[in-house]
């Protein structure tokens, strides 16, 4: 069973249905005990970075997420769920002068796209792979996936980058470090290619 973490950040139904479509049993949950039992964990999310961290804290999910990752079970961050794995984000919240802090699982920062680009990036863009990963097995370089985001992750260690995408700049659109995988795009909205990526993840669980 794959646990999809529900923390009030966006609609999770599409992620659940896409995993079901590739034959995985998935449950939407807030319960740390379910995360503990799950064979794999998905952290989805759409919305503001700081709000998401506040919601995870309020739901008592920060420690259970760290435990799930430390246990070695496959973990997949999607969209905001990728960004939250990093240390800080430039997406400020209210008047707070400090950059909001993320889960800090992967060293690096989340940056805003530079001025002059249409932000958010909305639509289908291509993936290129600097290394072979389990998550993108069977996915052709140059495949299109669906993105909606204004910020992107800049990992401190380029070795964690699993895919890059060009949007005015070339940026990291996916990471894979041992059992921790994360994608900036929405595999659940990326048609055949996205379903292949979810199938790859589910096969590891």
């Amino acid at each position, binding site marked *: 069973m794959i646990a999809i973490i529900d923390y009030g950040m*966006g*609609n999770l*139904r*599409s992620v659940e*249905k*896409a995993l079901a*479509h590739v034959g995985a049993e998935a449950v939407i949950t807030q319960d740390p005990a379910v995360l503990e039992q799950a064979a794999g964990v998905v952290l989805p999310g*759409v*919305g503001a970075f700081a709000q998401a961290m506040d919601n995870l804290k309020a739901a008592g999910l920060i420690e259970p997420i760290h435990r799930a990752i430390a246990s070695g079970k496959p973990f997949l961050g999607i969209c905001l769920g990728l960004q939250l794995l990093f240390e800080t984000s430039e997406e400020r919240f209210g008047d707070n002068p400090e950059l909001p802090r993320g889960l800090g699982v992967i060293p690096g920062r989340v940056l805003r796209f530079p001025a002059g680009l*249409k*932000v*958010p*990036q*909305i*639509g*289908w*863009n*291509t993936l290129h792979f600097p290394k072979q990963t389990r998550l993108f097995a069977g996915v052709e370089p140059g495949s*299109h996936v*669906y993105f*909606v985001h204004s910020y992107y992750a800049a990992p401190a260690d380029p070795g964690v980058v699993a895919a890059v995408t*060009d*949007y005015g700049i070339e940026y990291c659109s996916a990471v894979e470090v041992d059992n921790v995988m994360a994608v900036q795009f*929405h595999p*659940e*909205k*990326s*048609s055949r290619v*996205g*379903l292949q990526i979810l199938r790859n993840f589910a096969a590891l669980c």
Partner: protein
Amino acid sequence: MLAKRIIPCLDVRNGRVVKGTRFADIQDAGDPVALAAFYDREGADEIVFYDITASAEGRCTMIDVARRTAEQVFIPFTVGGGVSDVQQMRELLSAGADKISVNSAAVRRPDLINEGAERFGSQCIVLSIDCARRIRPDGSVWWEVVIDGGRVPTGMDVLYWAEEGVRRGAGELVLNSIDADGTKDGYDNELNRAVAERVDVPVIASGGAGTLQHLVDGILIGKADAVLAASIFHFGQYTIAEAKAYMRAAGIPVR
């Protein structure tokens, strides 16, 4: 590189797909979910469902359409038509819709855009504008916002409303030319370009596509980020794959 998108639009009444020509003369053409799944397989980049159901009870059928679509279709889909409060937005988004498009209700109460964007994020809120071409006494062209399916003029300039909508939080704009709609003579690219040059969100051309060259013109001349079309795909005149190949040959990045 970000691809330009092709978006088939399905007009839905009481849970069935219809296609309006100049917003009248409606013809039945099938199950919206089956059509959406077909277009996903064909390579459509998104789907728009436009609900033209008149009654409030009929509206509930759209939630069911969204729910069933989310189970079978794994590309983004937008639901629009008659959405006038955040509660309706919430129901459609929880059913699985990715975006909500607002039109007349946002003209009547512009705060609807702010409320939707604050609650669900700008990426969920598409402002759809029905545009009527007008000529000033000095001969210059402007576009008037019209509502209620094109029947009611508002006196408001489309360029003003587009900028105001984006300022309030709309994440994308659909420009539907009511003059071009159903004519198959091509998009109003003067309109598309005028708006695209003023806003920094994606602009989607709508109304008038009759040939594959029209799709290309919408992108290259109209500067649109996506093209929306109905009849040329619904009645099998062209496949999405043919449209993509034609656009690619014209140098447009497509999926």
